[in-house]
């Protein structure tokens, strides 16, 4: 039986090779269908994973309150110097840590506008003044050294921790731990370096910062040296900004309470602030949204892939019906020589499956190239699961069977005498 099947397959290949161009053209529909399935799965999976990773970095159990500069009410043509005061306050932070229900802890973060320099190299990263618990709340892993400590906070020490990108920029080949980093006018000892992280979509580079990257100082140290007022030089005007806190990260005890805390935060801020100089970011909500978006995309792409597979299947069926008519005489001969109906059915089904699986294999190849191309040129990660090609293979075999059944049935049920008489 195995030998028979092998011979049937070989025979199918022979028959298909008699019309090479036609066979190849016939497989194209399935090729494109399958490649879009593969590409869709890979890109969809990659995009979903990227979104999830970004959001997870924010912490799914966190609620983040941020200062947002309200829109300028006056735009003057002249050079001006003025102080705008906005954003989260220390009392917002206090309320968050004491009055919200189910809060584990709240972390204040200040962002400073300072140049960072080591030797000849200088850059403007996000300089963040925060407390030691920051690393637990955000779950950022350390690359070397240590993070800020309670001791640093108490002593208001001049220490800093560098983000990976900043460390590599300042000192490409040597460790920065133990080195004196100049931040603004003062020197700080580097005590640790963090691991790099996936760039966050929501992290817009701050105006004036030419490299995205971070540097951490103890909160009190930051306040002591740099105060609350920052100077920003922008398009000819000098803006003085007074912001007490740039971010408050609230860690919630249990994931069930995240949405509750989020609404408490929104209420509290709405009642305390005259203008909307804040935003509340809830990673959990974003995650849900991202999942929703990913699902929508999967449905859309899946529908497109489905349609192209359908078209591919119909193409195969069309060609097979023509082939059956063309080979009526061959069918008659085989029947006269003892072929049963099922032999004829199998023969044509096998040809359909060879066509569709052939198309499927080409499609997998093409489908693996598309994500690679997209990944390279559009900065979208693509994740190819080992099961995807198998799935595509299965789908294409199924298409061959489904769309081959009718032509094969037609072939098997021809009257042998009529078929033999066919020209």
């Amino acid at each position, binding site marked *: 039986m195995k030998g028979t099947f092998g011979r049937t397959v070989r025979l199918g290949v022979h028959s298909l090779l008699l019309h090479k161009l036609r066979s190849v053209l016939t497989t194209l529909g399935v090729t494109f269908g399958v490649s879009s399935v593969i590409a869709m799965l890979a890109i969809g999976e990659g995009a979903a994973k990227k979104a999830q990773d970004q959001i997870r970095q924010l912490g799914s159990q966190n609620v983040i309150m941020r200062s947002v500069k309200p829109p300028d009410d006056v735009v003057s043509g002249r050079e001006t110097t003025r102080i705008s005061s906005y954003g989260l306050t220390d009392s917002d932070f206090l309320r968050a840590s004491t009055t919200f229900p189910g809060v584990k802890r709240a972390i204040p973060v200040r962002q400073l506008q300072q140049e960072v320099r080591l030797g000849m190299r200088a850059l403007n990263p996000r300089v963040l003044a925060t407390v030691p618990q920051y690393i637990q709340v955000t779950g950022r892993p350390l690359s070397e050294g240590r993070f800020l400590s309670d001791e640093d906070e108490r002593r208001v020490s001049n220490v800093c921790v560098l983000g990976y990108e900043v460390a590599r920029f300042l000192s490409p080949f040597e460790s920065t731990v133990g080195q004196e980093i100049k931040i603004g006018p003062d020197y700080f000892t580097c005590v640790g370096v963090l691991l790099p992280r996936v760039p966050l979509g929501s992290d817009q580079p701050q105006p004036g910062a030419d490299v995205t990257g971070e540097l951490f100082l103890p909160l009190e140290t930051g306040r002591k040296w740099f105060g609350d007022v920052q100077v920003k030089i922008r398009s000819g005007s000098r803006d003085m900004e007074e912001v007490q806190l740039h971010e408050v990260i609230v860690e919630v005890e249990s994931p069930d309470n995240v949405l509750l805390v989020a609404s408490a935060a929104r209420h509290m801020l709405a009642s305390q602030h005259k203008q909307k100089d804040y935003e509340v970011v809830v990673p959990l909500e974003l995650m849900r949204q991202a999942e929703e978006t990913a699902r929508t995309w999967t449905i859309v792409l899946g529908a497109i892939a489905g349609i192209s597979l359908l078209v591919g299947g119909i193409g195969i069926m069309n060609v097979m019906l023509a082939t059956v008519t063309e080979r009526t*005489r061959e069918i008659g001969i085989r029947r006269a020589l003892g072929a*049963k109906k099922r032999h004829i059915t199998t023969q044509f089904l096998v040809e359909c499956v060879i066509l569709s699986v052939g198309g499927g294999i080409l499609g997998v190849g093409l489908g693996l190239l598309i994500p690679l191309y997209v990944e390279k040129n559009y900065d979208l990660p693509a994740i190819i699961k080992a099961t995807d090609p198998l799935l595509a293979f299965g789908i294409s075999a199924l298409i061959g069977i489904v769309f081959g059944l009718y032509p094969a049935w037609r072939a098997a049920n021809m009257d042998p005498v009529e078929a033999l008489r066919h020209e």
Partner: protein
Amino acid sequence: MAERAQAEKVAELTRVTRHYKMGTNVVRALDEFSFSFAKGEYWSIMGSSGSGKSTLLNILGCIDRPSSGSYRVRGQEVSTLDDDELSNLRSRDIGFVFQSYNLIPQLNVLENILVPLFYQDDPPPDGEERATKLAERVGLGSRLEHRPMELSGGQQQRVAIARALVNDPAIVLADEATGNLDSKTALEILDLFDELHAEGKTILLVTHERTVGQRAERTLRLRDGKIDEVLENRTGVKA
């Protein structure tokens, strides 16, 4: 004809009718036809066009069924068999040779000869050997790998004959087997049939040509789906 009654009946038709309905008309291609062919006989079947020769051959070859009447192959009643059983019977007991050779173009000579075995439920293990021997026998031993397109008409018909013999059938049925060949090639094919007959094969050969028909042992003449006459061919060339 006394000795005929003794021989084993390979194919036995009793009051077989095959009619075609053409609108209100009914064409009786075979009309209450009764006859039997015995083992080892070599018959030619003749008659004017439309007399029912092909219809008879198709029924004998089990690719067509009688509208009524009984047909037995080696004692086995055919009218009660289903499609698969009929196919089995064809692959075991029938050898077909057609006017237009009817080889399968995508298969080579050896593969074409093997087709009937391919469809047997349990094919003999020595199929390839047998096919190769038959190819040698019909003079195509050196052409096993060739495709039908690469052979002359006579060579193709030889392959077709080898194919008709590969399953060692009870009857070899040939419908105008020499009809497409020039007379010299036709004679070679007829010589081959003579040899087969000498080996004891049962052969039924449909033909229009008297000279061809006379090569057989006996001739069955049809007219309007009935037996017209039965002739002994004393002139039959037989070594």
